[in-house]
């Protein structure tokens, strides 16, 4: 377990920066993480119908969460970019609810809504996911067209019709590319079954 943890840390250059924050509140490590991730989180949020100003504000909050929660980060369960993706996703959901409720009250519901209960399930397939590198490998086997459709469909919250119009492809092609891509990712788990 330790050895796989070590291997993970080598795979993910950002894990050492989070550890530096966790161990010694290293501000330079924070600055490096902020400079890399805050502009990318901002882009991701702006693709999700968020204004630039609000996207930047949520990106600030996301990186502040990295600072405050560095001790909770487990490099064996997710890469830093995946961890930050989930933080940004949760903050985006909370921010849109706060806005709908008039903006006055702090909302922090999404994190609990995504927390899977602690009770571990006896499923060998969980082990496969510990190796996030394999997900990246599988993504490399997807065509850029398939990736684009996954990205627009789930991470930019676009309907199949909108995707078809944007990419100027038939609706049926959108659906078949998505299905193929999903099967590829599912296959990643079933290899070990």
């Amino acid at each position, binding site marked *: 377990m330790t050895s796989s943890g070590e291997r993970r840390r080598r795979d993910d250059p950002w894990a050492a920066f989070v550890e530096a924050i966790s161990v010694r509140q290293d*501000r330079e490590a*924070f*600055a490096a993480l*902020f400079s*890399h991730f*805050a*502009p*990318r989180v*901002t*882009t*991701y949020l702006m693709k999700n119908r968020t204004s*630039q100003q609000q996207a*930047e504000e949520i990106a*600030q909050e996301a*990186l*502040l969460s990295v600072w405050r929660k560095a001790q909770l980060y487990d490099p064996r369960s*997710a*890469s830093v*970019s*995946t961890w*930050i*993706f*989930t933080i*940004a*996703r*949760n903050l985006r*959901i909370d921010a849109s*609810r706060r806005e*709908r409720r008039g903006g006055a*009250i*702090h*909302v*922090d*519901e*999404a994190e*609990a*809504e995504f*927390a*899977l*209960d602690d009770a571990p*399930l*006896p*499923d060998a*397939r*969980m082990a496969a*996911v510990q190796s*996030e590198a394999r*997900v*990246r490998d599988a*993504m490399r086997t997807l065509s850029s067209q398939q990736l684009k459709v*996954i990205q627009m*469909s*789930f*991470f930019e*919250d676009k309907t199949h019709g909108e995707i078809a119009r944007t990419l100027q492809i038939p609706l049926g092609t959108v659906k078949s590319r998505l299905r193929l891509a*999903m099967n590829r*990712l*599912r296959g*990643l*788990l079933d290899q070990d079954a």
Partner: protein
Amino acid sequence: MTITHHPDEEMLAAYAAGALDLGQHVAIATHLAACGRCRAFSRVCECVGGAMLEDEAPAALAEGALDRALRRLDAPAPAASAKTQPVADDLPPGLPAFVKGYDFGPWRWIAPRIHVRAIALPEPSPTRVLLLRSAPGTKLIHHEHTGVELTCVLTGAFSHEGGRYGPGDFDLGDPSVEHEPHIEAGPPCICLVAMQGDLKFGGLVGRLMQPFVSF
């Protein structure tokens, strides 16, 4: 617990991306509480999100963004909204922790051998969530719905043309599907149901159901 019916991959990907409305999210989270296979797939989708984040083109931030963040590092974290609502002590097993904190209405009789219990979400959602309890041996009437309906079994079991559904199993009903589930002998069958749109029932039962439909 052997789970044989799962949400499709696209729904799990939408869950992981944070693209589901809260009612649908609750139904998927309830399935994930029981299903390691789908948990693993949702984690894969989060990894896809991480990889995409890594590949995003960096946006140009407002001047001084980093300095502003550095100045905020020593500020205290905003107090978590501590919601220590009492959890109803008569809830069925299998609900995710955050769902147990919601307000549950009383069980209401809606048809012979069938009761429902509304779950109040903290957020307006186009998808309503409720518990549906059916006595063993009941044959549910055919109903049409105008939107998709997500069902996750908590206790007991039912069968329909699509197979047998026991605890943890997930069933997706869409407007084109006509199913008449039959509740198995044994314990009462309690399901968490998340549904969009309105139910349309014919006949007497439909009229009996109206108060429930408009809750």
